[in-house]
Structures are given as structure tokens and as C-alpha cells.
């Protein structure tokens, strides 16, 4: 690890003012940042520790949703009775991620802002446009089994590794932030993470020094909620493909559907056309296939990840079958 200075923020204003300085980084759970700092993928000159700020509450909003503080630990969010009751897809997605020890540290904001697990991003001896813009992408012609089939570019085909974010995408969450001048805004999660295009180093809509203070969830949508994660081992492994689905169906007919996919793109992948192909349709292989076609439109493998295309289709079938049989 490169040497750095450490300071503990006493207030949000303090944190935002300090985090805005070049080379400064916020540290929350530290489970992603320290991992990357040990490998010198991240080399901040100072860490601003926000762990003792009062951002660790889960509150009900006046609209009937939830406001989740940026520092709520993944384990506490998954176990919250209101989340278990009304946002089961989020609870399941969180529980599918990492290990219990990591979830006890990992925070809501840190999870959203965790960086890709692309092997070459982690290896500072290899070209990587995300780590060193303009150096090239080692994954395109290299080992790319875990990489994106959707949303990638010539510059980068890395996936976003979060499970939690996939569920939040299906739930239409908003990310609340504040900056060093005390300005606040709420960013729809659809716009929070960025596609790589020609600037894969820009991963989120956050401006320099902007701090995530909370994630809000609107009132729970109708329907059954499922999170299915397909991976190389049964536990403690990142998703190859995951599906967050919220489907409202009655007597073999689908009234509404929301689908978000993880493991396949640089951000949680949600396609309105796929959901429309299920709405007011009869349950069955035909409508499920039509939804998969729409979700996978433009999908392209880079070789070793080609299998993700049929795997996504089959996982979607399995999830929709499971929900509509209940």
C-alpha cells in the first residue's frame, strides 16, 4: 500500500469539503477500497473515514417507501424486517453477495460504488483503460469469461459486480447525494452507473467530492419478488448471471413485470421492451422467450463469455417459471 494520511470526518460538511481535494477518498466499509489499495490499483493520498457519521439509519418515507442511510451495513439492510417483508428481492440480493463477514462491513454506498472484478483491472502490470485511460483493454482478446455481453465498448467490457444494485435497479431506487457546497440531489439509479463508452474510468454520475448520503426506495411494487444468482460455486462467488424479477400475475396472465440483470453488463441491465413483452401476456415459454429476446438484444460475447447469452435466457425462463407457478 502507498502511504496515505487518515482523517475521521466529524460532520457531513467536513467530509464533503475534504473529499473534494484531489487524491482524497472516502472510506466506508473499506472492503473494496483497501483490497484495491493493497494492490496499488487505488493510490489515494488521504482517506476520509465517514464511518462515525450518523448515516446508518433505515427510515420510512412519507411516500411509503424506505430511505436507507449510506452507511447501513449490507447485513443490517438484508435483515431489516421492512426490507424482508416488502423488498424481498433486495434482501435476497444482499444475502447472495460476498460472505457474512464482508456484509457486516460493506455499506450501501460502498456496495454501489465497488469497482469491477476484471482480472486485468486488478493487475497493475497489464494494460487496462479503466485503470490507465488509453493503455488498452487486456480483456478483449484475453481471459473474458466473467465479462460483459451487453453495454460494453471497444474500450472496456468489464461488468459491475454488485448484486444489491441489480435489485435496486428493479425497485427504481434513487441515490441521494451532497457536495462540498451543501447542494443535494437525488439521482435515479438508472443514471447513477455509467456505460464505459470511450471513458471507462468514469463509472458513476458522482462529481468530485460528492458524497452518497442515502438510497431511497419508492413504495413496493405489486407482485412476487425473486433474485436468482448463477455462479461458479453455491456461495461466496460473484454472479456470472443474475436476475432480479418482480412479476405480478394472476391466473396465468401477467399484469406487470420488472426485470433487471446482473453479471452481464457494466451496470444493472434493465430493458423496458423486455418488460412490455410480458405485460398482459399469458404465462408461458412464448412470452418468456420474447422477453429474453428483448433483454438480450445486441448481446455479444467476446469468446469465453459467449455462454452467458444462453445462460441469461435460461435463467430468466427459470425465474419467470418459478414466479408464475406460485
Amino acid at each position: 500500500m502507498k502511504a496515505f494520511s487518515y482523517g475521521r470526518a466529524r460532520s457531513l460538511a467536513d467530509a464533503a469539503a475534504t473529499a473534494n481535494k484531489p487524491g482524497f477518498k472516502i472510506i466506508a466499509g473499506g472492503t473494496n477500497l483497501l483490497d484495491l489499495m493493497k494492490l496499488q490499483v487505488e493510490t489515494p493520498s488521504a482517506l476520509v473515514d465517514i464511518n462515525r457519521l450518523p448515516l446508518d439509519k433505515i427510515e420510512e418515507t412519507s411516500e411509503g417507501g424506505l430511505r436507507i442511510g449510506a452507511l447501513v451495513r449490507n447485513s443490517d439492510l438484508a435483515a431489516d424486517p421492512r426490507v424482508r417483508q416488502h423488498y424481498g428481492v433486495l434482501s435476497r440480493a444482499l444475502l447472495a453477495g460476498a460472505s457474512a463477514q464482508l456484509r457486516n462491513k460493506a455499506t450501501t454506498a460502498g456496495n454501489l460504488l465497488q469497482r469491477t472484478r476484471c482480472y486485468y483491472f486488478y493487475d497493475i502490470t497489464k494494460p487496462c483503460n479503466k485503470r490507465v485511460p488509453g493503455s488498452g483493454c487486456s480483456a478483449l482478446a484475453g481471459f473474458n469469461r466473467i465479462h460483459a455481453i451487453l453495454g460494453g465498448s471497444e474500450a472496456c467490457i468489464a461488468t459491475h459486480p454488485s448484486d444489491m444494485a441489480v435489485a435496486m435497479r428493479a425497485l427504481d431506487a434513487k441515490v441521494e447525494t451532497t457536495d462540498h457546497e451543501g447542494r443535494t440531489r437525488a439521482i435515479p439509479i438508472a443514471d447513477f452507473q455509467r456505460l464505459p463508452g470511450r471513458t471507462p474510468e468514469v463509472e458513476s454520475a458522482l462529481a468530485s467530492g460528492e458524497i452518497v448520503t442515502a438510497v431511497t426506495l419508492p413504495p413496493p411494487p405489486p407482485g412476487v419478488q425473486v433474485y436468482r444468482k448463477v455462479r461458479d460455486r453455491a456461495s461466496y462467488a460473484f454472479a456470472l448471471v443474475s436476475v432480479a424479477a418482480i412479476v405480478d400475475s394472476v391466473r396465468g396472465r401477467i399484469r406487470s413485470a420488472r426485470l433487471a440483470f446482473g453479471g452481464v453488463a457494466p451496470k444493472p441491465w434493465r430493458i423496458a421492451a423486455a418488460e412490455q413483452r410480458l405485460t398482459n401476456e399469458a404465462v408461458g415459454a412464448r412470452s418468456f422467450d420474447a422477453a429474453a429476446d428483448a433483454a438480450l438484444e445486441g448481446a455479444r460475447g467476446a469468446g469465453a463469455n459467449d455462454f452467458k447469452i444462453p445462460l441469461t435466457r435460461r435463467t430468466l425462463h427459470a425465474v419467470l417459471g418459478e414466479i408464475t407457478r406460485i
Partner: protein
Amino acid sequence: MDESIFPNVEVTRRTVIETGTTALLLSSLPHGVLASEPDQADRTPASIELLVNGHAHTLALDPRTTLLDALREHLTLTGTKKGCDHGQCGACTVLVDGRRVNSCLTLAVMHDGQSITTVEGLAFDQDLHPMQAAFVEHDGYQCGYCTSGQICSAVGMLAESREGMPSYVTADLIQPLTELSDNEIRERMSGNICRCAAYPNIVAAIKQAMGEQT
């Protein structure tokens, strides 16, 4: 110290924070840091206090020191092991304020004033903790390298389960958790890898300890 920022700390912890960390607060970081010149940044060791296995220790540490290295290298508590140093194996598991975490992926300075329990702190005088005794009885190891992490993790896991925390394999998220099946134990312990694959005996040991604690 602004009380409103630390609404819930107990008296002992507040004392520790007040006396131990003023040097760490952002507003008192040296000018070099605030000028954000990496080269000028002051890297004098940070002074912190850790309550480890019931004993208070004041340590002067490079901020880079992980909690794991603070325990092993500075307090010579070598029971906690370093396997991967990247959060991937669980060998470094300790309890921080009663919750299990990977001590390799957190900085010691972040835990100023907190209470840490390592495998050395589980036994009561000469009596092994029920979880330790169960691991011995069931031969829940071969080489033993993962064992202290497994034991601390299992102690933390049972506390989580008693609080009703669900897992990925919990069938019903809404009903209260009744009993931990083998499948539940395996899922909840998946953050602890055992290269010797002592898994069946680890599960047996945890089941025994679980029975004794209820």
C-alpha cells in the same frame, strides 16, 4: 467533541475517543494534508486505543496497518491468521463489538475505541469456549490454519442467528428463524474456506456448540 455526532457511544468508548483520537480528526490534520500535496502529507503514526480481549492497548500505528497486522505484529496475538489478505478466505476473522469481520480488509485506525475479540479471548480462564471444545471434540480441522477464523466466525454466526438474521438459503424471509439446518450452517459459514476440507466436522462441531448454548 461534538456529542451529536456520536449519539450512541457508551461512556467508556466516548472517553477513549476523546482522549485517543483528537490527533486524527480531520480538522486537526496537519496543514500539508489539507493542502492536499501528497508529498507534504504528514504520516506521523496515528495513536489509537483498542480494547482487545478485554484489555486496553494504546498503539502508535502507520495508518496503513490493517487490524489483522495490528493484532499479529503489534500485539503479538498470532492466533488470528493471514491467509489471503484480501477478504477471500476468512482466516483473519475476529469479532468487532461482537460482529464477525475480516480483519485483513479494515484499518486498525478505523476501530479506535472499539472492542475486539480474537480467538485468544474466547476461553474463560482455563476453560475452552464451548465452540473451541466442540472443534476439538469433533476434529474440526486438519492443519489448523483456518481454525481460529472458523471458530470466531462460528461464534459470530450463532449470535447473528439468535438475532434472527436470515441467510441466502433461508426459505421464508418473514417467519422467525427456528432451527439452523446443516444447509443453513454451511451457507452462513461460507466466508471461511478450509483447504483441508474439514467441513463435515466443522458443521458437526457447530451443531454441538449450538445445542450447548441454547
